[in-house]
């Protein structure tokens, strides 16, 4: 079975069809890793591309992600432990003093769909909690979000704490008032203006 059909089903936000096609592909003997990489993650890469080009917006991204997750639910029991090794582990949260979670959750969703293990710490997360959870889950990346300009100093302090701790975690930042210039200034390792771009940055950071 051509993986393109699975890609198309995800891009059509059709959960039932995605599930059906994944099951059919398994029945035909297609390797689970092929279905995952070429079908489901391939589809989400296409979602990211369409988002970057302005063809998709949040609704399309979210619906495609849900179709992808439905397909992955079928696939997961068929993947052996080494095959489900994540692309990386990301600890993500909104920084201390900030309660906004929508943008952060969109990034978390896209990272999961790209094969990352995501530990979502929620909102109002203190620097030491980011670090403690990154250590507990053996994460490579700490991703943090802020919506309020007043919490940008907290983001800066969090990045500084991570660097100071010496755990070797890479830091990724985002949120409405965050820019590449700010990310550079505070010493973050990665920045993306949107959730889809966050996947590219995370892949790059995880591979370093």
């Amino acid at each position, binding site marked *: 079975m051509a993986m393109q059909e699975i890609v198309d089903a995800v891009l059509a936000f059709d959960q039932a069809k995605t599930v059906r096609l994944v099951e059919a592909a398994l029945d035909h003997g297609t390797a689970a890793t092929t279905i995952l990489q070429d079908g489901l993650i391939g589809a989400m890469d296409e979602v990211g591309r369409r988002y970057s080009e302005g063809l998709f917006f949040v609704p399309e991204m979210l619906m495609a992600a849900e179709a992808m997750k439905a397909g992955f639910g079928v696939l997961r029991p068929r993947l052996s432990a080494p095959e489900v090794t994540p692309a990386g582990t990301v600890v993500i949260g909104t920084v201390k003093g900030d309660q906004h979670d*929508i943008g952060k959750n969109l990034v978390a969703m896209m990272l999961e769909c790209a094969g990352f293990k995501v530990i979502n710490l929620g909102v109002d997360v203190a620097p030491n909690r980011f670090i403690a959870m990154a250590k507990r889950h053996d994460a490579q990346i700490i991703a943090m979000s802020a919506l309020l300009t007043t919490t940008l100093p907290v983001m800066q302090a969090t990045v500084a704490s991570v660097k100071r701790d010496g755990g070797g975690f890479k830091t990724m930042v985002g949120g*409405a008032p965050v820019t590449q210039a700010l990310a550079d200034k505070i010493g973050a390792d990665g920045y993306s203006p949107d959730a889809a771009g966050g996947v590219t940055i995370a892949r790059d950071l995880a591979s370093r």
Partner: protein
Amino acid sequence: MNSRERFRQTMGYGKPDRVPYFEEGIRDDVLSRWRAQGLAPGADLSQMFPSDQREELIVDLEPLPRPRKLPTSSLELDGLRRRLDPDDPRRLPNRWAESLRAWKARDHVLMLRVHRGFFLSMGVAEWSRFSEVIRLLITNPRFVRDAMAIQADFAARLADRILREVEIDAAVFTEPIGGNDRPLISPQMYEDFVLASYEPVLAVLRRHRVETIVFRTFANSRILIPSVLKGGFNCLWACEVNVDAMDYRDIRRELGRHLRLIGGIDLDALRHGKEAIRREIEEKVPPLLAEGGYVPLADGRVREDVPFENYVYYRRLLEQVTRA
């Protein structure tokens, strides 16, 4: 010329004696901090700088009583409709009769907040409702259209009730729909689900001859603006924006003078210092002033990370440049 006349002249491309100077909304905690930085105790900013008073008439646009569960299907919309009663006296601010009397003789600008925009109208305050509403846009578009129609019918009837009693200077639709790099939904979806639903409200505003209809938005909603203008709005007030994306000079060039503008000065400049403020004001304000229909203002609430010295410099320079 009083503040009200000045605003109306500015928005009507007339001959104001100067542009209105509105305050950005400065909280008490900022004032406390500024007192430690040189603001005299008891000093009133509106006395320190030439200022124009602007009042926003805020009516309660939420369902009353607040529902325990927000609707997700058409079957639940009757309950929403019952909770959106424009004749409910709790909709109006306290001391309504007293305010009406005062407004008749006012010389300040009065704006009516007429609609809360798509996401707030759909009850979005956090992730779970956000993702639910986003899903409904695709899985149950009819429900979303019906829910927005109920909200608009309510907003239109409430606006009509108010406008029969008081003449306002502008109506404000608040639309927090921008993301970091673009609106959360596409222009096509915005036109279909949101702008189309506003028509009854806009019809009431036209009937009452409200001349300035403001689209107040946040972050980056740049690609929606042409649709918004086409949909019947004539004034943009973009707050907390990505300055490169929402540069008013570009928007004016593209969309022309029919779109009045409020704001346009990057609040970040006030954080960065005098040189940034000077550059921001001297580059952006004069060309927009020359064309008219523009109220210069920082693009967000001044917060505690703006030093008092910078704020003073900003207000004085703005006055100097706009009077030149």
